[in-house]
Structures are given as C-alpha cells and as structure tokens.
C-alpha cells in the first residue's frame, strides 16, 4: 500500500504495539503530526511543554510497562532538548525510541534553520541511531530500532527523519523480522559456568545477593526470590533494584553504597561471595573500588558482555538474560544452613542502625514525611522520585508492595525526573495511585509539566520535600567544603499557589501534626495534588560513604539518632 513517510512511521508504531507517545510538534515533524489524528485513539499523544519531559516520560512509561517508550520532537532545539532524557534512558538501560524530525535532505549539513546533527550528538548515549534518507527504509529502520531498544540490555534508539522524507510517498513494506546481523545479545549462560556458580554458592559461608535493575528489566522477581530462599542467601538491592525483591521479606537487607544501610556496607566487606544479578558495580554502590568486598569471590549475572570485568573482575560469569540465568542457577543450588552469618548480620544491624531519626514534634523531618506516605498508602502505589536527599530517603525507607514500583533516575541522576517520570507512570497505570516524591530544587527543573498533568487530569500526588535548598549540594558543602554554602540556598516560589495557577489542588504542611492530615486529604482528592512539605532545612542524609572513600569508612547516623535505635543484643560487635 502507498503511504507517506509520516503514515509509515505511525503504521510501524501500531504494528510494534505502541499505544502512547509523548511529544511536541515543530517545523520538521509537522507532517508526522498532520497524520497523527488518523491514528487516534489507537495511539494516544501527550503534549509536553518541553521535549526533555517527553523523553523522561517515555523512559518512565517504559520502566513500568516493559514496553518501548516513544517520544517525538522536532529538529534542532527540539531534538537537543531530548538529550538529557535519552542519556537518562541510556544510563539506566531503558528501552526508548526517539523519533525526531530533521531539516529537509537538501539542507542537511548546510546549517539549515533548526538543524542540529542529532545523530552525531546522540552516538555516545544511544544503543544505535539512524538518519533515514529514503522513505522506503522507514519500516525496516523502525522495526530494527524497536528490536534493538528492548532486547538484550535495553536502551534508547534515535531515528531522525527529514521533513521531506516524511512527506514522500512509497509502497509500505513491513519486514517479517529485522535483526541487524551485527547485533547478537546473549541469552543462555554457559552450563559449565552455572555449575561452577552453584559450587561457589555451596562452598560459601557468608554470601550476599546484590540485585540490580536487571532483575526488574527481566521481570525475574520470582526467580530472584527462589534463589534467595532456596540457597538461603540474603538480598541487597541497588537503588534501581529496589522493588525487585519484597521489602518485608526476612532475607531483605535494603540498599548498599553511598547512602545505603551501614550494615550492608560492612556485610559486603565481610562477605566471602557476592552474587551480582543485573547490576554493574556503579561507584555509588562500591565506594573506593580497590577496597570493595576484599574477601569476596564474585558471580556476575549480566546480559551485557562489556559490563563483565569493567569494574569488578568476577570469579564466574553467567552471561545472559537475568531470568534465564537465575532459572538455570536455581536448578543447581541447594539449601545451606548459615546461622553464623545471619547472626552476624543481625548484630551488624543492631550495632549500626541506619533507619532511625528523632520523633520531633517541633519540626517536620523529611524521613517522617516519606515514611508516612509509605505507611498511609500501605505501600500500594507507584513511587517516583527526583534526585538528591529526598531520593535517598525514599530509597532507604521504601515500603512499596508491588514489584517494580520504585521509579527513579539512577545512573544519570537527572534532577527534575519526578514530574515527567510520574506522568509516564500514571499514563501507563491509569487506575493506580502514583506518588511523586520531589525535591524543591529538581521540581523547578520540570514544573512546566504541571500543565501536562492538569490538561490530562492525571491524578498524581506530588510531595515536595521542601527544605529550601539543593539539599544534597548543601550537605556536601557542609561536610566536604568547610560549610561554605554557595548557590545551594533556594528562594522558592509559593508552591501551593503555583499548583493553583495550573488548576491543581495545592496543600502545605509546616508542622509535624499537619503531615498525616494533608496526606489523607491528598489521598481523598480524586485529581492531582501538590503538597509542599516544609521540612527541617538542615537535615542530612546518613549513612554516607564520603566520595572516594571505601564502604568500610561509612559515616553512620549521628550519635543522638543511634541512641534511638533498639538496644543492641548481647552479641559483641567490633567495627
């Protein structure tokens, strides 16, 4: 059938199962937008106010659904505005296909109006990208783009299509499959490696599982749990692994690393075996690499061969999909009693508490707000965060009950993720409760998207942990820059009135006793709500591994906080 390039793009999206697109029109993608209404309602389009939000919303949508997130932008500034969102998806292995309009073919390379070399710009932050110069290539290119984006280690793919290619007509030919011959992600682990891994687990007296985003991407929740229970091994989840394992499970230890639980950092240092599943030994997890897990052998379960040995050299590698690898491994492991190790972990937990804070009636503690939100929703919601102190507290106190319900920007650490991220999640899960846990700094990086929220009536609950600062910056300046607070203090707008300006219910809590009431009010309000939680301004996030230090050098909670923890048992613990 004859079609224009624009129609071909939309036809391909339908065939790839795309239901939702986030985007913003402009000169170079107007043919695409011109054709779009003919595909309503099979494709729903959400108009964002800045293209960065389109890429970030597509990213969050993809994380929650496991489908490819799709965003549209025009050439030049439209395309470059996507860059932060694409980089975010790249760092966290999220399948996103970005379709950008480009200037007409005759202008490419001649600095045409709104021309930017977006394929050149995005080479380092995409799995692959394409500039389509021939309309007949559109079906094959998009089929390849979707396959590359979501298979193996997922990631973003950008397809740049000149305006005149979108307008040209040609026969639409849909390829049965499109698999670039140079692209062969691993699937099945080597059976000998599986046996060897099982042997290491059987030999180990002090093992730990470190579960990362790969568990969630591969939807290997049951397999991970089976490994933990079958082999009797406790589970630590990285920031992006949170909600990959039930937080109330007796084998769950929480998060490791820079703001992880103090006990985990010490346990990792004492462990004789790490079973790393779908994680890449990020510096925020390992601390100073040369002192990381000095006593441990390592089993690395990983789909991306380039991650193996990049930071930590494994003893055994299972190369393949996390779910497939775990299934194979589960077939080989046996239960082993490890009471000494569990007693040791219990002693560490008591000696190095990480989740206590003063019950302060005078001030609103940020930890209290976050804990209260988890409590009052019974963990039955999606939690989207920004980046900074509030993100780390949200990670530490996480109580979500659903698998894959903690959506956050990990590798890139993109402040402002919380608003477009929550939009992507709410669009993907229209009937479910979505809480955006926001920083007052990051919130202002994307708050123009409150218009998108209001326009579409997305009933997101925004909780701004408002400490009047770029809180993590202030914390670093206080701890590592002699208290020289530069450019970290924020003169904020009146967030309640800002919400109201967009037609969103705005609430505020300034005293501790207000907190449950406003959360309750927000939960009862059917539409979007923004709550400005005026929290204690100088609260620091602990535990903390200072930048460049080893996990053994974790700074624990302040003394007065530790005093609040349950008293240590009789077990002697030396540091």
């Amino acid at each position, binding site marked *: 059938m004859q079609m224009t390039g624009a129609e071909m793009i939309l036809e391909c999206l339908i065939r790839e*199962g795309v239901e939702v697109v986030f985007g913003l029109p402009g000169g170079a993608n107007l043919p695409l937008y011109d054709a779009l209404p003919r595909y309503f309602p099979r494709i729903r389009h959400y108009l964002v106010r800045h293209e960065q939000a389109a890429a970030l919303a597509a990213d969050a949508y993809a994380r*929650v*659904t*496991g*489908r490819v997130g799709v965003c549209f932008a025009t050439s030049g500034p439209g395309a470059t505005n996507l860059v932060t969102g694409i980089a975010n998806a790249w760092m966290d292995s999220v399948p996103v296909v970005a379709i950008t309009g480009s200037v007409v073919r005759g202008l490419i390379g001649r600095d045409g109006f709104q021309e930017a070399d977006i*394929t*050149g710009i995005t*080479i*380092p932050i995409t*799995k*692959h*990208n394409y*500039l389509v110069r021939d309309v007949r290539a559109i079906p094959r290119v998009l089929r390849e783009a979707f*396959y*590359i984006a*979501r*298979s*193996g280690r997922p990631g973003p793919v950008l397809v740049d299509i000149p305006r005149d290619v979108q307008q040209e007509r040609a026969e639409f030919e849909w390829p049965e*499959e499109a*698999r*670039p*011959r*140079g*692209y*062969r*992600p691993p*699937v*099945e682990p080597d059976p000998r490696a599986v046996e060897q891994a099982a042997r290491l687990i059987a030999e180990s007296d002090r093992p730990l599982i470190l579960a990362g985003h790969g568990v969630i*991407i*591969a*939807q290997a929740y049951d397999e991970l749990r089976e490994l933990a229970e079958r082999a009797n091994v406790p589970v630590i989840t990285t920031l992006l692994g949170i909600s990959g394992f039930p937080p109330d499970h007796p084998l769950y230890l929480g998060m490791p690393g820079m703001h992880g639980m103090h006990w985990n950092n010490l346990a990792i240092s004492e462990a004789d075996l790490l079973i790393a599943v779908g994680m890449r030994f990020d510096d925020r997890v390992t601390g100073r690499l040369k002192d990381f897990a000095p006593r441990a052998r390592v089993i690395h379960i990983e789909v*991306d*061969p*380039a991650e*193996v*040995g*990049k930071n930590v050299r494994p003893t055994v590698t299972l190369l393949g*999909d996390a779910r497939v690898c775990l299934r194979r491994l589960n077939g080989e492991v046996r239960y082993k009693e490890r009471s000494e190790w569990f007693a040791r972990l219990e002693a560490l937990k008591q000696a190095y508490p990480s989740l206590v804070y003063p019950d302060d009636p005078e001030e609103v503690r940020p930890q209290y707000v976050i804990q209260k939100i988890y409590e009052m929703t019974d963990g039955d919601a999606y939690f989207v965060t920004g980046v900074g102190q509030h993100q780390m507290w949200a990670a530490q106190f996480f109580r979500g009950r659903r698998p*894959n319900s903690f959506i956050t920007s990990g590798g890139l650490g993109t402040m402002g993720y919380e608003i477009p991220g929550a939009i992507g999640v709410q669009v993907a899960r229209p009937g479910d409760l979505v809480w955006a846990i926001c920083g007052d700094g990051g919130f202002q990086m994307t708050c123009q998207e409150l218009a998108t929220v209001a326009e579409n009536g997305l009933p997101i609950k925004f909780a701004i942990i408002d400490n009047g600062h770029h809180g993590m910056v202030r914390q670093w300046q206080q701890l590592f820059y002699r208290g020289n607070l530069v450019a970290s203090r924020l003169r904020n707008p009146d967030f309640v009135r800002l919400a109201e300006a967009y037609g969103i219910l705005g609430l505020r809590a300034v005293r501790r006793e207000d907190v449950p009431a406003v959360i309750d009010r927000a939960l009862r309000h059917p539409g979007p709500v923004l709550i400005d939680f005026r929290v204690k301004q100088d609260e620091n996030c602990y535990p903390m591994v200072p930048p460049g230090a080893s996990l053994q050098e974790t700074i624990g909670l302040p003394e007065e906080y530790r005093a609040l923890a349950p008293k240590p048992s009789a077990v002697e613990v030396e540091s």
Partner: protein
Amino acid sequence: MRDGNIRRRRHTVIAQLEDRPGALNRIVSRCRQRGFDIESLVVGRSETPGLLRMTLVVDGGIDAEQVVRQLGKLVDVLDIRDVSDEDTLVREMALIKVRWDADRRTHITEVVRAFRARIVDVSPASVIVEVTGDEGKVDALVRLLQDYGVIEMVRTGRLAMLRGPAPSHPPLEQLEEAYEYCPVPQPR
C-alpha cells in the same frame, strides 16, 4: 614484539564492520568516551561488498578485553577480536620525502635498496621513498634517512591479518547460523 619492535607492547584488534554511514564515527566515539587511546586505525573495504575491515592499535596499558567488548556491542560491528597474541602478519606502509643532494644520492639509493624500499618519485631536489613492512622496519628506515633530510612522511598505520588458511573472522553464513533471536520481554 615479533618483528623486532622494541617499543612498548600494544594491543592489535581486528574487526569486520558494516559499511554504513556513521560506523567509523561510532567506533571512534566509543574509543574516545572509554579512554581507549588510539595509536593507529586503518579501515578499508574487504573482499565482501558492504563489509569493511578494520585494524585498531591501542596502548598496551588499556584493558584489551574491554576494547573488544565495548566495540563488539556496536550494531555495526559484526565480529571483533584481539590478535595481539596470535600469529599475525603485520604491515604498514610509509611514503617518505627526502632531500636529494647530488653528493648523497648513492647513499640514499643504497639505504633504500637495503630496506627493499623503492624510490617512487624523483624531482631535482627530492625523492619519495615508499616502504612496506612492520613498524620496526619503517622506523629504522626513517631514522637512517633522517641524516639526509626528511622533508615529510606519511604512514598508514598497522594492518594485521592472521597467517595461515583460516579467515580472520567467521564467514557470514556462520554468523547468521550462530544467530539466536534474542527474545523480547513481554510487556508487564
């Protein structure tokens, strides 16, 4: 080093690439981003239409396994391997423009002959010498010719090929056979 090169050991990586726009850009970009210092890079057509062959030389201090794995991930790269420890034939070509004074002509001619190089261009005041060999040989010739006045030099960088009858990369049909369609996760 095999052919008497006394310089620090380097890694030689050979690859087979798709002949597509941006392929070389992606390789160079990945090397730059990951800090793989490129000592030489040669890309050209292969015996198969649509396929390029590349020889990449990186500093010996770099983890060659990371080079192979990071570049091997690129969609344009069909096959890539580190041949530093394999039995390879290594060649480089150089063109060297040398001053051609009347009293030194016989010396230059002798040196060129001793290296089995060739004089490929003659003008009243200069000659261009063409030499092929491993880097050690090219370096040695350049050092000797420097006494006569090297005006300029251009070198290709290292080309490498496995010795013996086996191809350096698996044939395409084999690649296709080995291909296991990676399952795409079902939407949640």
